[in-house]
């Protein structure tokens, strides 16, 4: 990593702890989370390094890192942390904060997928309409032709429905989205 690190105060650490509800400050750098992380080889910042940078108050380095978007939420780190830190939960909190502060790395492909493609589909139909969701993601991410070779097989195997099934509770779902967005702002 470029530059030297110095303690920048506890504000960021306290906010991450409050919002994730987990004691990030308890991390003593045993690196058990990083060694068991399935996406470690692709991460420029390993999970234990992210914990340490939070201690140091390195808000920008953490929130702008593409690594926080590579977490697959497999929960191996959370399960194994000897200090009981919900590390996968911290990754969620960091993503939410990165979006709020417009700090999302341009390399983070997970963001357009989560918010616009997947949750957009849930809001429209009450359920995920996979074909619509995948098309929306491809358009948004610009990766129009990635996986096009999979489409004929998926159709042949009846794995991509052509039309969405709408839940009868879709209006209720839209109401839940609206209220949840209000509640989330209060956190």
């Amino acid at each position, binding site marked *: 990593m470029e530059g030297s690190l110095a303690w920048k105060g506890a504000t960021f650490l306290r906010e991450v702890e409050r919002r994730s509800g987990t004691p990030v400050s308890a991390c003593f750098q045993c690196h058990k989370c990083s060694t068991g992380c399935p996406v470690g080889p692709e991460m420029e910042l390993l999970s234990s390094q992210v914990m340490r940078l939070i201690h140091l108050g390195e808000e920008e380095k953490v929130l702008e890192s593409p690594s926080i978007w590579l977490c697959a939420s497999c929960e191996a780190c959370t399960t194994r942390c000897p200090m009981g830190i919900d590390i996968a939960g911290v990754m969620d909190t960091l993503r*939410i904060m990165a979006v709020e502060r417009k700090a999302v790395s341009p390399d983070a492909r997970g963001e357009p997928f989560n918010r616009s493609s997947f949750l957009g589909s849930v809001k429209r139909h009450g*359920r995920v309409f996979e074909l619509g969701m995948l098309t929306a993601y491809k358009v948004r991410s610009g990766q129009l032709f990635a996986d096009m070779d999979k489409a004929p097989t998926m159709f042949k195997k009846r794995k991509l429905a052509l039309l969405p099934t709408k839940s009868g509770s879709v209006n209720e779902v839209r109401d839940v989205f609206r209220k949840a967005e209000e509640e989330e702002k209060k956190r």
Partner: protein
Amino acid sequence: MKYAYYPGCSLESTAWEFDKSTRAICRALGIELEEIPDWVCCGSTPAHTSNTSLAVALAMMNIEKARAMKMDILTACASCYARLRTANYKVKNDPAERDRASAILGKPCEGTTPVRHILDVLVNDLGLDAIRSKTQRALEGLRVACYYGCLLSRPPEIAAFDDPEHPTCMDDLLSAAGATPVEWPYKTECCGAALSITNADIVCRLGHKLLSMARRAGADCLAVACPLCQANLDLRQSDAKKAYGEIPDTPVLYITQLLGLALGLTPDDLGLDALIVSAASLLEQRDTAKSAAGSGGTR
């Protein structure tokens, strides 16, 4: 035995065969499923990584619907299972989460309706003896690597029915059904899950690691209980081989499909034609071997 069935979105499309085989084996085993009317998406990973309140509220909508049915929820998808259990856990143990979910849904939420996975119900409600007594010899000699993935057993305070590092429920079920589970070290390693859509290269690396280890352990096929595990290992198997080296074609079947075969159900009853890496030749070889053994009068 009757449960409020929550299929989840994947079981309506990419994993339709998981839905079909789950319903088929439940019918065969006398487990009654009543689909939760107008169920909605659990929010899956995109909800909990972008809005914590939304993740709890979407899952809780379904739990509240099941509460009105006065039944335990049964789900087959490992991800839906984890999301519903997490919502229950938060609402039950954190008054702030309970108040928030109740405010969003406009009614009091309790988080007390049990959420069960099909494997939990098969092992703990129905029992291995019942499985043993109802299965035939269809799987005899079939070597299976049981792949649990992440969310069936992690984190342990949420998924409470098996060991988080060394789960055995699928191995036990398949042994009872006459198959031969193999010992292998990657039972709970992650397949990359939803990175399949955004970072397929990572999923190919992880998939190749899993498939080649299963082969080295002597497995003919894998058993899974998660739509993302299945898709990542089956749909992406040819890409994984292209990128990381040749391994024999390895069918990845849902545990419900394998149990269905042991119960005497047909490939059609279980949606076996949905597999991309076909299991047909594997099952045919075994039929031929068995009939040869049968004509030899050994059984």
